[in-house]
């Protein structure tokens, strides 16, 4: 950590800090920290989202470290209560994990193993279909550094990085000059495919507007052209895109030197889900017959990629993993959290750094309210408010060191700005897992 003490206030400057707001995980932040007030007063290089992330995470020391049934409790009592709940459950679920460090994620998988529990990350309601798609067809992958230095064709399909990942285009994919892209933006073509115009459309050379829910059809059409196959003219009516435009896009994709397909929840969470993403991966595979093409999901939360990565190397599967039988099993739809809750199957839940009460479908929320919940969160949330055991944690990246994975699966170290009086997720998960082991041994 590179700290320079400033003169007037009791401040510190943290150079090369990492922003954990979105999947870009920019690691060139320069944070000015007020050590008395325990807050970040300036965040140089951060985008508008990053600035809000850093400025909003001051520490409220008056909050209790733990609540049991809404009453203030010690951390030790809370861990004991949480361990008892989880050990006594027949179908405990662990969910969340996308806004915490990979060290904590690894510990959560260990805990799931000891508990014979079900573990799932927010991927299952986000880019889970991406994992399922690439499991079926393979992944032509890359890193953002490679994109920066080589990509002369950037496609944003069903995503809006200008608003959601503001530095993706400016720092990695579109604007910067690269080794083989000497003129930066001028050397690149940007195509935006979406059902409506967004802020990303403004930076695109070509905007392809398709009818909602026709992504799979358009992807099939592009694959068909790239394979030299016949295409039914009904494609125009089905997608709302003229044949000439489809052929133009296909020609541009086939004739570039290095292309990248970025995609978001416009593909993963619309009708067709994992087959949409599978079709996109297959399009990239087909285009590799003509040129070099790769695919990357524009991941949302700071370490949701880490959740998939850690779970994959710990269990073999990226999300929706069940240990009920003592070994990991993966079945989206069966072992994914919303589905489990909607069917009313779980009898206890441990929610780590996530807020399902604010986001899940109504029947899932109703079931979650019926069972004992343990929540880990730096802030009060609707989930922490219904939790039997609510634990206050320190915020990763701002107070907690560790590792997070960027959207291109690159691990990035965190450089925290200031210390928090609250424990990290890992600080709680370690003794909790140990206590679970003790209880299970008896």
């Amino acid at each position, binding site marked *: 950590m590179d700290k320079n003490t400033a003169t007037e206030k009791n401040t510190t400057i943290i150079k090369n800090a990492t922003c954990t707001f979105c999947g870009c995980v920019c690691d060139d932040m320069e944070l000015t920290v007020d050590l008395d007030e325990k807050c970040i007063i300036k965040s140089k290089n951060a985008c508008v989202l990053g600035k809000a992330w850093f400025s909003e995470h001051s520490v409220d020391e008056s909050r209790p470290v733990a609540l049991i049934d809404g009453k203030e409790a010690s951390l030790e009592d809370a861990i004991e209560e949480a361990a008892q709940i989880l050990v006594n*459950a*027949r*179908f*405990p679920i662990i969910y969340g994990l996308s806004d915490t460090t990979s060290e904590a994620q690894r510990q959560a998988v260990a805990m799931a193993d000891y*508990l*014979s*529990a079900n573990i799932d990350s927010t991927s299952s309601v986000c880019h889970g279909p991406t994992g*399922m798609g690439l*499991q*079926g067809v393979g992944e032509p992958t890359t890193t953002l550094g490679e994109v920066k230095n080589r990509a002369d064709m950037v496609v944003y399909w069903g995503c809006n990085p200008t608003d959601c990942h503001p530095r993706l285009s400016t720092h990695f994919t579109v604007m910067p000059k690269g080794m083989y892209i000497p003129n930066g933006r001028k050397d690149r073509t940007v195509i935006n495919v979406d059902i409506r115009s967004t802020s990303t459309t403004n930076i695109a050379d070509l905007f392809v507007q398709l009818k909602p829910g026709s992504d*799979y*059809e358009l992807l*099939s*059409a592009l*694959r*068909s052209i790239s*394979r030299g*196959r*016949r*295409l*039914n003219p*009904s*494609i125009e009516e*089905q997608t709302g895109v003229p044949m000439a435009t489809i052929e133009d896009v296909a020609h541009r994709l086939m004739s570039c030197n290095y292309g990248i397909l970025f995609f978001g929840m416009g593909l993963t969470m619309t*009708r*067709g889900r994992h*087959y949409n993403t599978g079709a996109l991966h297959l399009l990239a595979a087909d285009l590799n017959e003509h040129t070099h093409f790769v695919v990357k999901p524009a991941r949302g939360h700071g370490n949701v990629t880490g959740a998939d990565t850690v779970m994959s190397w710990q269990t073999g599967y990226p999300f929706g993993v069940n*240990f*009920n*039988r003592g070994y990991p099993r*993966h*079945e*989206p*739809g*069966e072992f994914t959290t919303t589905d489990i809750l909607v069917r009313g*199957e*779980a*009898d206890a839940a441990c929610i780590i750094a996530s807020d399902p009460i604010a986001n899940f479908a109504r029947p899932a929320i109703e079931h979650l309210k019926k069972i004992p919940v343990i929540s880990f969160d730096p802030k009060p949330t609707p989930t922490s408010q219904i939790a039997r055991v609510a634990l206050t944690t320190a915020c990763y990246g701002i107070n907690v060191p560790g590792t997070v994975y960027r959207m291109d699966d690159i691990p990035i170290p965190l450089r925290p700005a200031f210390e928090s009086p609250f424990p990290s997720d890992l600080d709680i998960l370690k003794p909790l897992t140990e206590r679970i082991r003790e209880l299970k041994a008896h």
Partner: protein
Amino acid sequence: MKLTLHTAPEVPLEAEVIGPTSLNGLTEAEVSALTVHHGNRKEALGEFFTVTGKMNGRLELEGDLSFVKLLGKGMSGGQMIIDGNVSGHLGVGMSGGRIVVNGNAQDWVGEDMKGGSIIIKGNAGHMVGCVVRGAEVGMQGGEIIVHGNCKNEAGGGLRRGLIAIGGNSGDFTGLNMLAGSIFVLGEMGIRTGAGMKRGSIVSMKPAQMLPTFSYSCTYQPIFLRFYLNYLRELGLVIDDAWLTGSYQRWCGDSIELNKGEILLYHS
């Protein structure tokens, strides 16, 4: 032999031991002592079911089994008659015998099935006779007859065998199909036959075709009469007009082999 549910499981019960093949030759006491998985605990089958009668190739199950998974897993013969709804993975990997469900079934009916028949009198969930995720070859033989509706991905990766849906099916019917036959007497969702290599999908209602399918002709396929008469014998409602009617034939999926066919009843 009859198994009657006396205590409903609070969390999913994985009971792959329940099936005419696996219970063959066992006494009531031995069946009651078999291990089932109640969430993350092992418990005795008798904790949930009352076991009566002698096993003579016919197994009856009664009660709301909507939390009971993996019934009839790997069965190779005999009959299993279920009065009530069942959870997922019914008849996984079965190679023979017959399962009749007088109720609804959830996802993954007949997953990785190789032979025998499954008849669902109610509705079925997603992935009827569908390929296991990550594999290429799905159902390799046998029959699945659903009298009601089913959801998405029916017959995905189908290699051989017959799937007949009396009602409607969801999206991606016959996805990545390799061969075999799928009949949907009601309406199909979108993207039927996506990625199919060979095989036949037949529907009695109009359907939206993917742009990678091409219209071939309208004709009267004689072989359909044999199928439809067979389905009528199995209890599905078959209109006489379908037996002699004309069908639109669509070929696809052109991204793959383009040797699959979708037959849509025309008039």
